[in-house]
């Protein structure tokens, strides 16, 4: 259903745009406007299929989509799907890495915080994480870029790997890529950390008051076992679903962060596409991101049902 809405939106946005592409095409620099003759315009309209009624255009658009044909980028001289495919891996890998890192660290910190609730450790950590989680990701990225990369020279300033590099072995190649990916992933992880921390803390706090926790303690189990085996297992449910639900906003954050670090992913591509006014490509990227996010949301729904038998 939502897929349908997005596709429809994607279809109508350029057609609702003020102005006519042929007026744009037929006017040149300065005041001298060379106009196409009526028959030329009619020919072009027929060529692009713009003379047909909306319904016909719409159905042909959908059939093209189903065939996997989302258009051809004039600027890059390649089909949109190929261009996105080349850039996709970069983005997907930093997004996944960031979610993994922030989820792991956030959950551990959140559980510890809940365990020592209202102690000094909890209070300090809580206010600290609240403070950083409000700062937008791209600002964190810029700060890292200036301090860690530019001043201290610990990390490369931009890019996804060294240009013109000759790698002696495969391991060098991997290290280089990881080295470049470190700051973007760190930035995105910090931006996401608060969400997972707060969620796991809340979830743990409510689990810790349950009767089976008292039983576990009465059995004389060690603290570590209680936290990670008994409590966390039950507190994991909302965290798992949040992983999938947060993908949408991580993608949004990745678009900005990639541009901070000039990381060669889809987000950087999107900005390039806007700068060179490659509308077909912009739409293709939007479609790609939207479809990915929606699929993840759908997955979240399914997984939640699997994990929690109480939800029918």
């Amino acid at each position, binding site marked *: 259903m939502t897929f349908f809405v997005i596709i429809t939106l994607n279809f109508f946005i350029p057609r609702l745009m003020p102005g006519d592409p042929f007026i744009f095409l037929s006017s040149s620099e300065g005041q001298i406007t060379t106009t196409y003759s009526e028959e030329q315009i009619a020919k072009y309209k027929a060529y692009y299929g713009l003379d047909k009624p909306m319904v016909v255009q719409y159905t042909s658009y959908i059939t093209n989509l189903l065939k996997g044909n989302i258009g051809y980028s004039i600027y890059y001289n390649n089909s949109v799907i190929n261009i996105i495919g080349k850039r996709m891996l970069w983005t997907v890998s930093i997004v996944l890495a960031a979610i993994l890192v922030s989820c792991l660290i956030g959950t551990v910190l959140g559980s510890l915080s809940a365990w020592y609730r209202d102690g000094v450790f909890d209070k300090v950590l809580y206010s600290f994480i609240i403070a950083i989680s409000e700062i937008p990701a791209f600002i964190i990225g810029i700060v890292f870029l200036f301090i860690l990369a530019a001043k201290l020279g610990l990390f490369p300033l931009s890019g996804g790997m060294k240009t013109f590099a000759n790698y002696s072995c495969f391991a060098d190649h991997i290290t280089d890529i990881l080295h470049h990916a470190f700051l973007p992933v760190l930035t995105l992880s910090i931006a996401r950390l608060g969400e997972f921390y707060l969620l796991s803390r809340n979830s743990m706090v409510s689990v810790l008051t349950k009767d089976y926790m008292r039983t576990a303690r009465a059995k004389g189990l060690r603290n570590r076992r209680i936290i990670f085996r008994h409590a966390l297992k039950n507190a994991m449910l909302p965290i798992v679903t949040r992983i999938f639900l947060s993908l949408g906003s991580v993608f949004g954050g990745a678009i900005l962060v990639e*541009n901070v670090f000039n990381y060669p992913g889809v987000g950087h591509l999107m900005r390039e596409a806007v700068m060179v006014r490659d509308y077909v490509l912009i739409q293709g990227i939007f479609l790609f991101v939207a479809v990915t996010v929606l699929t993840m949301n759908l997955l979240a729904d399914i997984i939640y049902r699997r994990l929690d038998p109480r939800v029918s």
Partner: protein
Amino acid sequence: MKYVKHVMISIKRFNAMGKIGVAVVLMVLFLGIFSGWLSFHPYSIPSGGSLEAPGAVHWLGTDDLGIDLWAQICFGARISIIVGFGTAFLAGIGGSIIGIFSGYSGGLTDKIIMRITDMVIVLPDLPMMIVLGAFFGPSVRNIIIVLALFSWTVPARIVRSKVLSVKQENYVTAAISYGAGFWHLTLRHFLPNILPLVMVSVIRLTSRAIVAEAGLAFLGLGDPTSKSWGLILNHAINFRGIYFTDYWKWWVVSPITAIMLLVTAIAFISRDTERIINSKA
């Protein structure tokens, strides 16, 4: 007037963090409103040498074109405030109306409205904003409209569930039995109940909108004619050699500080408001 008094009372109940937050936001408001008087230099044309360090004449230094940065920050505050409050206001009012209507009518209308809300919530907002910005031209007005179109769902959902629960109260049933209509119920019974909740979500939306605008402007996709904080950052980052010179110390640091201050201040206020409302309930 009654509501203004309520707001004053709740500000008095803020703790230290909340009060600091209010103070910072008021300061930024002041900067934004009186930016013309507070900065002695124009914000769009050069007024000194390029890349001057902060000093007596140019408090925060100048950028590569010699434009005073303090003036740019002041006018940027205006943009941030307009976008933040404009979006929150539009989305808060629109969302509340939709929420009240949905909760009040129930049945099929409610179901359809909730389906639409679910759909809007999952749409990735930043890519959508970029697409709309690319096609319809980036202007502050368009940014506000697009942000509001993506934000109304939050207050709408909260308001709806509150209205649903208020509808079950005996005094509402009594009012209905006396023949109270939609408007009477809304004004007399729903609004006082939902107002604090709407307040919290509106505060949240404000900071979200400010961050979104700064992000878009940073990408260079914001309104190119408005000197917003994100746009200053965009210029600074795209300046060749910014990483290897000392210019970033004033050129990059000042907009970043401004954004972080405002956003954290709003976060403090929102946490405190939430705390007060929760303790009341």
